[in-house]
């Protein structure tokens, strides 16, 4: 905190405020709290001051500093009263959630929704409460109605996918990842996750394709290489492409599009994944020596 000048601190916190959920939070909340408390003592312009108050408040909640959060929220609600500002209501809900008072928080959110039925932040908090309480089934139902309206919300689809995964509903989770692939076709992580899912479902040919697509976006992605290695081994082990073609059902997608790769291609991919993995781990030098032997023995087995 002392290392940052005031201007730098302001800029840092402002950039953290604007980053969307796609970029991970790289700053520990305790530091945000410290920086925020420091900046709040200065007289900053009103919009920034209140944005900082809100940010410091959530940071306080993240660090479990309830007394500090309460005093900050007090300051916010004198300017933006609870009755008129939905944003303030949401903060009160957050405070209740942090103290474990979920019923009260849900009640606050529900009344807030009566004022503005399309408030995304509030709708998401209601799902978050259900997830937090472990009521996954109810959370899925609620999130489904949310997704029916806000169909372009990637955050909602990935949350829904992870909920389905914890319920072992792989087909549904795969559906969610298909939506994500369409919404963000430039994100290689979705390709890998989707490939993992279809591999779990036994559609190895499709998995091979999506691992390849991920590799196309980011060269030498280790997870994609592992997946490619395992998936090609599985396809080849199935008695080759012809064998699975005969089964018909499994690889319907691939066969239908007449895009099934040749056995030679699969062999080449299999070897390529192994080569790249060994090269990558050997490239780490002495530090990765132990890992390299583990990887090599895995490669032998697969």
């Amino acid at each position, binding site marked *: 905190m002392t290392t940052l000048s005031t201007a730098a601190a302001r800029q840092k916190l402002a950039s953290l405020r604007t980053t969307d959920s796609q970029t991970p939070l790289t700053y520990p909340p305790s530091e945000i709290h410290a920086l925020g408390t420091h900046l709040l003592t200065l007289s900053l312009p009103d919009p920034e001051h209140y944005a900082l108050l809100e940010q410091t408040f959530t940071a306080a909640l993240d660090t479990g500093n309830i007394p500090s959060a309460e005093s900050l929220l007090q300051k916010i609600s004198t300017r933006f009263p609870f009755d008129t500002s939905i944003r303030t209501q949401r903060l009160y809900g957050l405070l209740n959630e942090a103290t474990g008072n979920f019923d009260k928080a849900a009640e606050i959110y529900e009344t807030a929704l009566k004022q503005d039925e399309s408030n995304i932040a509030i709708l998401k908090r209601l799902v978050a409460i259900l997830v937090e309480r472990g009521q996954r089934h109810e959370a899925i139902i609620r999130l489904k109605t949310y997704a029916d309206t806000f169909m372009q919300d990637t955050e909602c689809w990935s949350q829904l996918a992870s909920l389905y995964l914890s319920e072992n509903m792989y087909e549904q989770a795969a559906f969610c990842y298909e939506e994500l692939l369409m919404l963000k076709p430039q994100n290689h992580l979705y390709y890998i996750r989707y490939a993992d899912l279809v591999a779990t479902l036994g559609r190895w040919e499709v998995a091979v*394709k999506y691992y*390849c697509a991920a590799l196309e976006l980011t060269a030498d992605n280790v997870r994609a290489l592992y997946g490619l290695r395992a998936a090609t081994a599985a396809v080849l082990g199935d008695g080759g492409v012809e064998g699975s073609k005969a089964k018909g059902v499994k690889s319907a997608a691939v066969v239908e*599009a007449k895009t099934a790769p040749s056995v030679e*291609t699969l062999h080449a991919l299999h070897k390529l994944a192994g080569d790249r993995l060994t090269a990558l781990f050997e490239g780490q030098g002495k530090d990765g020596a132990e890992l390299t032997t583990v990887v090599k023995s895995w*490669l032998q087995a697969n």
Partner: protein
Amino acid sequence: MARESQQIFLDPAIRDWVLIPIMVVMVLVGVLRHHITQLLASKPKTDLKAIRESAALTRSRILRTTGVEIPPTAFAVRRSFLSAAFEKHQYLKNPAIATSQQQANPMGDPKAMEPLMDMMKNNVASIVPQTLIMSWITFFFSGFVLIKLPFPLTLRFKAMLQRGIETSDMDVTWVSSLSWYFLNLFGLKSIYTLILGEGNAAEQGVESMAGGMMPTPTAQPMQQPNEILNMFKNEKDFLDLAVHEWALRGVEERILEKYGVGVAVGGGEKGGKAE
């Protein structure tokens, strides 16, 4: 030559009691109008069903463009689902308009009235003060000559700069009080931006004055119910015609090519010994 020698001496009191007050009053009225508009403006009410309606169209559009990323079966499922849903008008905000044949009355829906009301409020807030100022100026200062422009102008500017003074002999560079008002009206925009920030109501008031009663481009266009029906119908047609060309077709070969590996390599080898 006579024109250049034309000299009028203006009383400094005109500068102190007419020129500057008009400008100050106009700036203050602009600021006041900004705040009044903010008070009058009703919060834009968003309706879950309206969001859903447009999101469905967007989703279909996304499916047609980036749908190439998902497997053909997944694409086919989505296409038939959306197509059937559009056919049955499931995503319409108000499914009744699809069945009723007669032209729906746009004034009937109270929600459709809201943008109209906002527009009216804006116009009232901009026209009332301007009319008041204008009558104030014509009542007290009609026929006043306020300033002389430091550059020569052609005769055509006479109508613009000497409004309210009916002489044909005076030099064009002299500006009358009413014209000074109009110069201010259209010229204060950047001052408002300086005081009130971007996109303030005072500025928009001027624009709506300039464009008569036309709604500003920021105002949401009134949507006819039939229009949205047509949009869904078109989108359904596009969707039915969409061809799915899987983007991942041949991706295996592309990867091999990227890493510079031939296909024939290791045809029968299965172990993949890497050393």
